[in-house]
């Protein structure tokens, strides 16, 4: 029975994560359009709501081009690794007390390990594409991701000082007096900046800047492999936001409410 429950939980988690990622791409395009005084996608469904579906079908139905003299297996493996890692890090994010797929006692360490392995995908992609742009872009992106890993790790150590356990449910339920919450606020800002750099988002998106490096390490990737990179990057983004919520904003509880004493 519990196996069935676990498999159902997994299917729901995969469905929700992939759906959320698809609609985050839509939301980004709409919001960017609004910031530039234009509408984003509008034609596909009502208000362009079916745009991610159309994007997905387009990307699946195009040919995956493997460049000549590119290292074939590594070339195909890199986006698969990126997306798989972004997906399996979701098993430790709790949605309620102990309602988590893997209630392991080293949750934070697992998240740090998975995000450190994400650098492998980027370096493999940059090296296996037979292109100067991809190689340099991959190295730059990897250096950036790796350096902000350290920053993330140190901020997590600060939160662990206040929580006393590596289990993510315990971190949410740990007693935090108001003074602790106030003192953790600068750490929250530092963590926000670190995860922006970790996932190559603005203002740290030079490694994949379209005008500087013509796509960075993703320049040789075409249809499904590009889609996997894209999905992996957005899933990573949402995962880091989830981590921020669990560590600083109270997880499934309202923010600033996880304290026993006032």
């Amino acid at each position, binding site marked *: 029975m519990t196996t069935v429950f*676990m498999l159902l939980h*997994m299917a729901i988690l995969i469905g929700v994560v992939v759906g959320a990622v698809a609609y985050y791409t839509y939301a980004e395009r709409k919001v960017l359009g609004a910031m530039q005084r234009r509408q984003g996608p509008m034609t596909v469904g009502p208000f362009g709501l079916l745009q991610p579906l159309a994007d997905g079908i387009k990307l*699946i139905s195009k040919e995956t081009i493997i460049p000549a003299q590119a290292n074939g297996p590594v070339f195909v493996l890199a986006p698969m690794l990126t997306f798989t890692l972004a997906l399996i890090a979701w*098993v430790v994010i709790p949605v309620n007390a102990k309602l988590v797929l*893997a209630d392991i006692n080293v949750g934070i360490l697992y998240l740090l390990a998975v995000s450190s392995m994400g650098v492998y995908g980027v370096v493999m992609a940059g090296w296996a594409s037979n292109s100067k742009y991809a190689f340099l872009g991959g190295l730059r992106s990897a250096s950036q991701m790796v350096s902000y890993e350290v920053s993330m790790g140190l901020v997590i150590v600060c939160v662990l000082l206040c929580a006393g356990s590596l289990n993510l449910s315990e971190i949410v339920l740990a007693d935090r007096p108001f003074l602790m919450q106030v003192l953790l606020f600068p750490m929250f800002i530092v963590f926000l900046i670190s995860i922006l750099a970790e996932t190559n988002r603005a203002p740290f998106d030079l490694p994949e800047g379209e005008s500087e490096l013509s796509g960075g390490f993703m320049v040789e990737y075409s249809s499904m492999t590009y889609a*996997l990179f894209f999905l992996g990057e957005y899933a990573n983004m949402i995962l880091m936001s989830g981590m921020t919520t669990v560590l600083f904003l109270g997880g499934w509880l309202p923010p600033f409410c996880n304290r026993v004493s006032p």
Partner: protein
Amino acid sequence: MGYEAILVFFIAGVFLVVFANFLSNLISHKSDNKSKQDPYECGVETIGPTWVQFKVGYYLFAVLFLLFDIEVAFLVPWAVVFKEMGTVALIEILVFLFILGLGL
């Protein structure tokens, strides 16, 4: 504990990705143009060798990351037991950080 969930989820993730690639391979229309496999360089022929020399600065970056990541790995168990151990733990970790700071 929940480690078996991680394994099953990993297998499910790998299966999903392989299935997506396989599906894309099945239903995509392969073009006959053989120059589609040339490396991209803004539309012109590539100039110079492709695998350029690896700058040593990136290697130094990686080594420094390794050092500081190991330091973080040592700080994590200290942070977990800090509440029970009190002042002794604080003094010991200050010694550790001081030695690391000397290294910097």
